[in-house]
């Protein structure tokens, strides 16, 4: 089955990749290593280490990291619960997780903004019950909330895939050999679902790193992530060379993370398979 003839089938795709992924990327790299007058420079790349950019980069990394961790913390128990219950209908779960994406992303973020704003629905509810209002909006925590909301399915699905695929008798075997629940979780379940967690982390971490719309809508414009700076370089400051340079550096950071997590992540285990 694995014949040369079959490999030929991917030629249209290879042409497509070259035509619409690599060449456009080349344009960005070209801009990144030139100044506005067209001369060669590496300044746009090293600009990532300017204090402001460095700060944004660190904040982006931090928020992306925290969002990923929270997504894991929410998803893993859910996967365990679904595995334990006889009802482990993956199809329905995927459906439940993907459906919210059919509401426009900007509308969903606006909706979260309305829920958590100072005078918003949740605060009004808290007030009715005589509790203290929370001030979440326009803080980094609000951005984390938005990211977790938007990217949770990307973490949940691969983890679910992996955990459900662990054979029951492997768990029984470990119990048989004397393992208690905690031991089963740490020594069997988690090691066996690392690939799922790995792909989940790449799927959450990467878009969190490059995000700017969530930061704008929920951060009140007070919090600058690297994505915001790149967006501003392109659309406000009109310094496309700097924007490209920062983008290329961002890509390199993203690549490093995916290589780190990708070692554990199985490439095809992205969890969208119904």
């Amino acid at each position, binding site marked *: 089955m694995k014949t040369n003839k079959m490999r030929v089938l991917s030629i249209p795709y290879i042409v497509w990749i070259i035509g619409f992924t690599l060449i456009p990327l080349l344009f960005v790299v070209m801009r990144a290593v030139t100044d506005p007058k067209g001369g060669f420079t590496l300044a746009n790349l090293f600009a990532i280490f300017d204090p402001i950019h460095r700060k944004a980069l660190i904040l982006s990394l931090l928020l992306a990291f925290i969002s990923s961790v929270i997504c894991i913390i929410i998803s893993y128990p859910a996967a365990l619960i679904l595995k334990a219950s006889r009802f482990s209908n993956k199809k329905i779960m995927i459906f439940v997780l993907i459906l919210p994406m*059919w509401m426009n992303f900007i509308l969903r973020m606006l909706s979260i903004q309305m829920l958590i704003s100072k005078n918003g629905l949740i605060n009004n509810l808290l007030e009715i019950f005589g509790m203290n209002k929370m001030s979440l909006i326009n803080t980094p925590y609000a951005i984390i909330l938005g990211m977790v909301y938007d990217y949770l399915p990307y973490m949940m699905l691969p983890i679910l895939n992996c955990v459900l695929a662990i054979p029951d008798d492997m768990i029984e075997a470990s119990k048989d050999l004397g393992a208690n629940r905690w031991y089963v979780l740490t020594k069997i379940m988690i090691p066996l679902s690392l690939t799922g967690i790995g792909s989940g982390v790449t799927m959450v971490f990467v878009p969190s790193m490059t995000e700017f719309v969530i930061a704008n809508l929920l951060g009140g414009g007070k919090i600058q992530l690297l994505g915001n700076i790149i967006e501003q370089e392109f659309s406000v400051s009109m310094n496309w060379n700097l924007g490209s340079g920062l983008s290329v550096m961002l890509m390199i950071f993203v690549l490093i993370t995916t290589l780190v997590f990708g070692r554990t992540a199985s490439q095809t285990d992205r969890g969208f398979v119904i």
Partner: protein
Amino acid sequence: MIGRSLGKIYMALIIVFLYLPILVLITLSFNASRSRVVWNGFTLKWYREVFENHVIMSAFGTTIALAVLSSLIACFIGLFAALGIFAMKKRDYRIMLFFTNIPLLNADIVTGIALMLWLVRLFPLGFTSVLISHITFNIPYVILCVLPKLEAADFHQFEAARDLGASSFHAFIKVMLPDLLPGLLAGFFMAVTMSMDDFVITYFTKGPGVNTLSTLIYGEIKKGIKPEMYALSSLLFLLVLIILIVVNILMADQDNKKDNMERTQIRRRTLMKKIVLLFMMVCALSAALCACAGNNASDEGTELTVFNYSEYLDPEMIAKFTKETGIKINYEEATTPEEMYTKFSSGAISYDLLCTSDYMLKRLIDEGRAQEIDRSAIANYSNIDPKFSDLSKSFDPDGKYTVPYFWGTVGILYNTKETDGPVDSWDDLFSGKYRGNIIMQDSMRDSFMVALKYLGYSLNTKDEAQIREAAQLLKDQKSDVESYLVDEARDEVVAGNAVMAVVYSGEAYLGHEYNEDLAYVVPKEGSNLWIDSWIVTDNCKNKDAAVKFLDFLCREDVANANFEYIYYSTPNTAVVQSMDEDLKNDPAIIPSDDSIKDCEVYEAFDEKTTQLYNELWKEIKAE
């Protein structure tokens, strides 16, 4: 038992978390008020009106056509690609997967701009360019969904079919495809979802007149999302919900019958038929929608491509103009002058007419991007108040290039119930008195303007020390600021999330409409007076048509319709004269000469000052 119910509660909480925001949006679709922060009772009218809204419906058609077409093509390319990749050696397999992941790993904005830079060299941007971009980011989802199914597939079946005399194509269709179909369908579904949800890439690669729901919504944030949009989104959501439930029931039905092989086979075949039928229906629908969109685009005769701020012109007027003159308008929108400049100067779309703000006009005129206009050729130009020739001097000293459209001031919109007495100075923003209750403009120029005016300097100062002083002031102020917004500042004050906000005068009128406790003031230290005007770009081939359009905009009935569409100050004297008294007396609608005496119009900066601004602004935001 306790563990099990705890588990159920946990899952329920996750579902509430995911669906609460959706519920809010669906609720909003029943809100009688046009503002999302005011509840005016239950209504179904938006569900009726959405179908009459030409702009939303055409954007909806484009969105669906785009999603279905791009996903279908992505499915074809992706399926073959997956087969090819699957057959590759391990090293090539890895390399291909790496490239497949690039669109997923890249920041959307980079992908969008990169594609725009490249595609514009190949052909003029339009529906096709967006389609190509969507296919590009859809293929990876298809491949990543199909590959696992391929790995799990039983190739002996394929070989058995070959053995029984089937051609490899026939064997593939009859034997392999049914096994891969679930993966392919999942990929298709993911691709449609992603395509529908994308904003950034669409925004950068779309051509004139092409609007999707996402780009439409983004443009609407500024003036408030139209309730029809909530209605449409809710309908779409429910539709998908129903489709998915039906598909799930069909599939579950099939699963339940698994014990009976023969029946399963039959079931599967009928299920396949059903799915294929559904597929074809969706395709037919999208083809029909495409045809509709195509019809719109293929009108013969003269065309004009017009670039304006979003929600800045009554769409009825565009239809009216076409009806009167036979000239077709491709209407494009953007939210900030910088965005307009980026799109315009990239040459991605050849705009004929462009309406933007003073300092950006200056920049464009200086760069030679504007054509001279003979104002005497515009019959209705006599409606424009002559004082605007004077006010426009900073960017169009001889009145050769521009036609004023709207104007106004920047001031403070505040809640009179929450302040001690009337606000009349920028001081209230910097004194710390309303700590945590202030909204500043998320625009470099406007924020600096506030600080510079407060310090008593000109807002056009090029003195580095003065600019740095203003920047320091803004940095110190940051901890007092609740948020920096462009778009929803007005709504936030209406909703009571902040006491005061720096806004454009036009926003103030609508704010007052929703909440009568709100008042607007141009602080006594002076402020920015802005004039948004039209220019005819150097791209324009049909200047006569462009002049006709400008003349049309200056006509009393048209100017009045546009005024009533957004309630910004109009320079059209005929409109002003026919206004109601209370409108005339509203300082947000007609600023008094007294209130604007210390106001200045923005001038364009030189390179050095622009850079200084950019750097300082970044510092402030990163503080």
